[in-house]
């Protein structure tokens, strides 16, 4: 035993030294000393390429911007979970825990306000605000703003269109060159015995629909989005709220929403639209690229349907904003990287490759975007984005959205009293008087 001791101690000492050396090396690289590029971590939502930089997704932009930085920074991507709710939980936990790797993150606009209000984002350099808002569609700037300040960088911006089959619209005698209303759509679907794809499962997409219907009737779910929970005022219990409830009930009770309307998310509604029964669909622009049925030449798009005849529709707004975490070691470099990622060229490339529309207006005039969204669809997306309505930019949207989905489910049970009862339920939840 005794003889073995010296070598063992030797091993132990060398092991400690190796550990110390690697530990120091790790510190050196992450603190971004002058010896090499700073390492930025970008938490991305899943897209066309995920972590693979050869597919044109966010990973590709990360690689191109790293190469273009001239050795200043190197961006590594980390993939977030699939659903928006799970993405929120992971980001929130890391931000609340003071994670220093939160250099850049792709955030769903529905949660930007919540994070911004909690002070989770690094302050944006004043001299970059102009660059981040120039040439952007207004709805994307609105969604990035909280309490009058730009809190995140508009990256890609989504909006829903009304997709239809030309043959079905013609048979129903519906003039699609003019704005159509939900009532007209339902009547057309009944007349032609076709179905309308909508999202009404118990998930965020259902809130997107409800919000678009209410906004289209000139209402708003939250009247004062910047208020704290005890002073918040809701606009659900209103004529606009009841208009929305009436349309949801009508789509469900007439059966034009399809047999599985209550469990229908984007994918299921797209599948319904691709089936022979599908006549109409409200969905994001990725629909065009994802439409794989034979009669693709029959597919066309127009503006989102009106809630009230004569009142311009407010299509849903979605997308992704880029944000820099408050505990990032390199906030300045991270904002520089965000500027590179959201350059017009990169937005156009990204839109063409992933099908996710740009927030930059100039991107819509590029040849690659026009090729990916032909027949005037690119222009239509751009126009729809100009009038799109974001979901309420309140820090409490997560709770409000869950409560909305629960109380409006199943869609067939929605009645004229639903907006009122939902409003009082949301207020009780926000004030800690009811569980969710």
């Amino acid at each position: 035993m005794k003889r073995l001791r010296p070598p063992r101690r030797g091993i132990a000492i060398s092991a400690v030294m190796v550990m110390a050396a690697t530990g120091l090396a790790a510190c050196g690289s992450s603190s971004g000393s002058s010896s090499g590029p700073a390492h930025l971590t970008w938490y991305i939502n899943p897209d066309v390429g995920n972590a693979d930089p050869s597919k044109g997704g966010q990973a590709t932009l990360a690689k191109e911007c790293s190469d273009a930085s001239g050795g200043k920074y190197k961006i590594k991507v980390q993939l977030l979970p699939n659903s928006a709710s799970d993405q929120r939980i992971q980001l929130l936990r890391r931000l609340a825990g003071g994670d220093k790797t939160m250099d850049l993150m792709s955030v769903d606009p529905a949660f930007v306000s919540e994070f911004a209000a909690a002070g989770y984002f690094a302050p944006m350099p004043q001299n970059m605000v102009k660059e981040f808002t120039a040439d952007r569609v207004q709805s994307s700037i609105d969604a990035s703003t909280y309490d009058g300040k730009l809190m995140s960088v508009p990256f890609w911006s989504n909006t829903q269109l009304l997709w239809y089959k030309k043959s079905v619209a013609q048979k129903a005698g519906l003039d699609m060159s003019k704005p159509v209303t939900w009532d007209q759509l339902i009547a057309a679907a009944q007349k032609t015995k076709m179905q309308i794809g909508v999202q009404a499962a118990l998930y965020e997409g259902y809130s997107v629909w409800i919000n678009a219907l209410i906004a289209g009737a000139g209402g708003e779910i939250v009247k004062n989005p910047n208020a704290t929970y005890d002073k918040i005022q809701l606009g659900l219990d209103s004529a606009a709220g009841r208009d929305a409830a009436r349309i949801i009930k009508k789509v469900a009770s007439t059966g034009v929403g399809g047999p599985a309307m209550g469990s229908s998310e984007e994918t299921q509604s797209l599948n319904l639209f691709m089936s022979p029964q599908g006549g109409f669909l409200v969905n994001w622009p990725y629909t065009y690229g994802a439409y794989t049925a034979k009669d693709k030449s029959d597919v066309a798009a127009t503006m989102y349907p009106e809630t009230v005849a004569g009142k311009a529709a407010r299509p849903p707004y979605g997308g992704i904003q880029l944000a820099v975490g408050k505990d990032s070691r390199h906030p300045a470099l991270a904002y520089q990287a965000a500027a590179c990622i959201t350059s017009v060229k990169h937005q156009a490339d990204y839109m063409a490759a992933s099908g996710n529309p740009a927030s930059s207006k100039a991107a819509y005039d590029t040849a690659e975007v026009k090729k990916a969204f032909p027949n005037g669809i690119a222009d239509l997306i751009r126009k729809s984005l100009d009038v799109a309505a974001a979901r309420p930019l309140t820090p409490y949207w997560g709770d409000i959205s869950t409560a909305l989905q629960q109380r409006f489910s199943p869609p067939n049970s929605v009645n004229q009293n639903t907006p009122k009862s939902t409003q009082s339920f949301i207020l009780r939840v926000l004030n800690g008087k009811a569980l969710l």
Partner: protein
Amino acid sequence: MTAVAETNKGKLTAEEKAHLSDRAKGERNLGWRLAGPAFVIMLLVTLYPICYAVYLSLFNYRLTDPAGRKLVWLQNYITALSDPLFWQAFTTTLIIVVVTLVFELVIGMAIAMVMNRVVWPRKTLRTIVLIPYAIVTVVSGFSWLYAAQISTGFFNRWLHFFTFGGFSENYNWFGGRWSSLTIICLSEIWKTTPFMSLLLLAGLAQVDSAQEEAAKVDGATWWQRFTKVILPNMKAALMVALLFRTLDAVRIYDNPYVMTGGANKTETLSMLVGTETVSRVEIGMGSALAVILFVIVLIIAFIFVKLFKVDLTTSGRS
């Protein structure tokens, strides 16, 4: 060391305890010195979080809104205990606990008796019985989910086959509350019966075979021997097994989370705590619910220890 071990074997009688000798005092001190550090660490890692949770439960506190933190005293408890959602989760949890406990006890006892009798291959048998318990609960949850759901499952096909077509192949087990709970309970029973049977086996091993033989000679039937000789002799082990499994089952989370995510009124108390704390980041309400769950566990432990007189220190020696 041997001296300590011997006195620890329970040689101190009541009278001796009353008049502790210097030696006994010294040994008691030594005991504290040996167990003390572990005891302090345990207090730090368990008592501190518990006290902190109790403190937080008095606030209306949202993680993303630190400025809006407001002391509301017992309002969170009043809200939780008067909310229908809480009682729904409570009922769901209670149903799962009672159903799984009854089945686990009966099946676990049967397996334990078989294991006790079988001489060959005893070790192999015990290993095989333990396999389900060795599987991570989330994994077993997914296995049962895939086995029961329409697209990937084989349950429906077998039921369809054995009922000669009477059972629909397209039956959605996760479409309703009771059918979901059936699969959740089955998965739970399958997973934890081995644990139960192992604890019961330890109790069975302590039953004096001479007593059993004497009963046999006196003409006692099998049932009489089981209820009058075996069960009273292993009462302590039985109660410990029941207590452990009850406390475990009350905290059920993995299986319903994986299988239904709480849909169709299958949300359990632990899941409710998780929803409030993790996804809604309502730290105050979540802590209040966690404290309520903790109190429920305490009450159950109290009932077992005081009313059923389970002595955890002399397990197996009734």
